[in-house]
């Protein structure tokens, strides 16, 4: 049977984290499931978790009164969802909605924040990993902003 520790340990995000820390992270993890069109979190809500998507697709959205819900990015299997739990004031900046039936592992950010404060080595390890995800998302966003396909290609 696949345990949460095994699943987390095999994910690239937690690669080489070390058995002790992996065990600690697993202690903050739980399986969650979201039906299509259900919101995982809403803009402005407290951000106390992040998610490792195991199956399905999640749309990150912003709401505009003129245009309704605008999807800025979708995330899928293997992606990490959410980093606002790491950065004060710990509120979500976007809505996250399950597009399809989505299964994920939720990680308790509040619990991890406390453990990171207690153990800065763990904090640095997690921050490095999130910095990598942020860098990837920033690069993608920059490419999106270039509106490459709008001109002659």
């Amino acid at each position, binding site marked *: 049977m696949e345990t949460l520790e095994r699943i987390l340990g095999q994910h690239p995000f937690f690669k080489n984290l070390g058995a002790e820390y992996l065990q600690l992270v697993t202690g903050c993890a739980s399986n969650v499931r979201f039906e299509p069109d259900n919101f995982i979190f809403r803009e402005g809500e407290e951000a106390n978790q992040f998610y490792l998507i195991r199956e399905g697709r999640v749309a990150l959205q912003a709401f505009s009164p003129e245009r309704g819900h605008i*999807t800025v*990015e979708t995330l899928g299997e293997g992606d990490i969802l959410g980093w606002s739990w790491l950065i004060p004031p710990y509120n979500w900046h976007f809505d996250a909605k399950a597009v399809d039936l989505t299964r994920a592992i939720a990680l308790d950010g509040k619990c991890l924040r406390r453990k990171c404060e207690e153990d800065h080595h763990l904090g640095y390890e997690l921050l490095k990993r999130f910095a990598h995800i942020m860098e990837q998302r920033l690069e993608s966003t920059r490419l999106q902003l270039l509106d490459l396909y709008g001109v*002659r*290609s």
Partner: protein
Amino acid sequence: MASVLEITTDTSPVSIGPMVPRPFVIKRFRKETDDTFTLELEPKEGRSPFAFGPGQFNMVYVYGVGEVPISISGSPSTPGLFHTTRAVGTVTKAMAKLKKGDVVGIRGPFGTTWPVKEARSHDVVVVAGGIGLPPLRGAIYEILANRKDYGKVVLLYGVRTPADILFKDELEQWRARFDMEVFITVDRAVAEWRGNVGVVTTLISKAGFDPHNTIAIVVGPEVMMRFTALEFIKLGVKADSIYMSMERNMKCGIGLCGHCQFGPLFVCKDGPVFRYSQIKELLVKWEI
């Protein structure tokens, strides 16, 4: 001096010379999106098939307006000559106003082809951005015609909005196959869109190919192709195994005029299909 029409009674492009356009009749004009269309062409005179390789281009001449390089969007193994393009400049805007029965001039085919034979026994990842899908269509058909010769076949296609998706019927057919995976992503979504949103490079790591045994073929805006190549390299694909189709100011089509010079290369003759390893240094040089 013989007129073009007299010359074209012989349909061999070689015998009339590469600088002489042959008249082709528009058999069908198909609107793909608001600004993109496909011309299906047949020779005005003569019946010999138009032989070409996937990835090659023709110079398409709108009489009285001008000539532009356009990739061939059909399959080499099925009849008909297809060109899909977007109406953006003087010539293509004039082309967009043509209709069935009108005549255009064709010179070609020119340039290098996609490595569909070399890719046999490999996984093949096809990455298209925007109007980059038509030049890849022929290669996709060639690969599917000999499907058992290849490993995994994946198409990753990025467009601006859902309304800009080309060849929707074919994409659905390809997606329905059990031996091909198709992933589409858009930069900007409408509320009804339930597919992926984000740049096409984000799909690459999810395509599940063997990086040590993969041929990647890529067409799109140059910036997109550069970042796509970097993503493949990051995953372990060799620069030699990444192919991309370049576009410059192609004029003569045979490497004589120099308009499409790209460092030591001529895109019309040495390309348009290049290995990434051939051009990666040139891609980041502003001066060329």
